[in-house]
């Protein structure tokens, strides 16, 4: 049965090793998708290359279908899979901070590490900023604590919030992804830049 860690297949130390291996794999595929380049990443904000959107949504749909079918077959115990609880206000603000940082810096946390690994200086600067911001946040945490824990709604799921069955939500998300891909293709044509500007 899975999740392996929850069934005691390996301990905390081995968990770190597994995380390292999975992280290397994640970084490799980010790089292969072209996400080691800030130019490629920020293209999504100019709507002329929505590869980031498409790759991320593909990953979501693939993982969602995989998890659904594994759980349906009884291989995966979904009730043991960790879900981040909802703290509405800090998560909205955190999302905005990440989005603004993404648009300004050209990377998100994962892609900045992938970029650094391929020797890009801007990626390294971004990672240093990430570390600096983390330290500032940690030191300021006592001041931010009240806000950090505000708007607590516990663990929320789309089936629970929408009152739909799990399977219907899965199907709806797949349809949403296909619609999103079609829309992204249309936007890319609409906002395509001449080859000389790329």
């Amino acid at each position, binding site marked *: *049965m899975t999740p392996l860690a*929850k*069934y*005691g297949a390996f301990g905390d130390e081995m968990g770190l090793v597994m995380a390292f291996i999975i992280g290397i794999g994640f970084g490799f595929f980010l790089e292969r998708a072209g996400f080691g380049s800030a130019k490629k990443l920020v293209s999504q904000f100019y709507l002329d290359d929505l590869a980031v959107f498409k790759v991320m949504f593909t990953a979501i*749909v693939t993982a969602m*279908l995989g*998890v*659904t*079918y594994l*759980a*349906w077959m*009884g291989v*995966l*115990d*979904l*009730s*043991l*899979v*960790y*879900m*981040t*609880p909802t*703290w509405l206000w800090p998560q909205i603000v955190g999302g905005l901070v990440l989005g603004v940082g993404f648009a300004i810096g050209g990377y998100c946390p994962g892609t900045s590490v992938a970029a650094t690994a391929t020797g890009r200086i801007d990626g390294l600067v971004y990672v240093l900023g990430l570390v600096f911001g983390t330290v500032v946040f940690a030191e300021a945490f006592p001041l931010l604590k009240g806000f950090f*824990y505000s708007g*607590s709604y*516990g*663990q929320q799921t789309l089936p629970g919030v929408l009152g739909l*069955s*799990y*399977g*219907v939500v*899965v*199907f709806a*998300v*797949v*349809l949403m*992804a*296909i619609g999103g*891909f079609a829309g992204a293709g249309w936007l890319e044509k609409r906002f395509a830049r001449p080859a000389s500007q790329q």
Partner: protein
Amino acid sequence: MPGFFSTLTLNQKLAAAAAALGAIAIFANPLPGGAVSIDARTLADIVERDADRIEPLELADWIIQGRSDFRLIDVRDAGAYAKYHVPGAEHVPFSSLTDAALPRNEKLVVYADDGVRAAQAWFLLRARGHAGAYLLRDGLDGWQQEVLFPALGDATTPFQQQRNARLSNVASHFGGRPRSGDAGAAPAVAAMALPTPPAPVAGAGVPAGGAKKKKEGC
């Protein structure tokens, strides 16, 4: 039909496959995830490694640090819970452990008056598939002996002085006080008055006061 299929691009074929899988998934009911089974060897191994228990001082540190990646469950009866409970503990009487709506993806620390009842609760929770269940070693007895009223040993070396200072700090944080001198001459723990209980925490389903999770995830 095969002719039509061959005119599709790879992306369109993949999209069609995802749509088909999604449509079939409408009939899926992946929760609660199959029957629970007890793996006796796994349990024995956990007990062997002492990986089933949390030390009283460790728990005290977690509470002082405001750690929120665990839920503390008091399985004693309501009277005992009202008289005293560890700060932040939720009351889930032993009899209702089997149908309490406790999450299976969170760390649960159970305790009772002594270690035996807590161990039984731990087994029950493990059997119900709570892989993150732990027990407080020696229960409330251990909590009193080691956290509320710890016996301070000699303080001749700096290390011992540091240790005693830490024990005193922890004890006073929870409204207790250390027993000084050698353990034999100190008054019996049972004779010492327990601190006033902290405000009770609502039953299972509500996170303990201030005890919120912030682990795992990205």
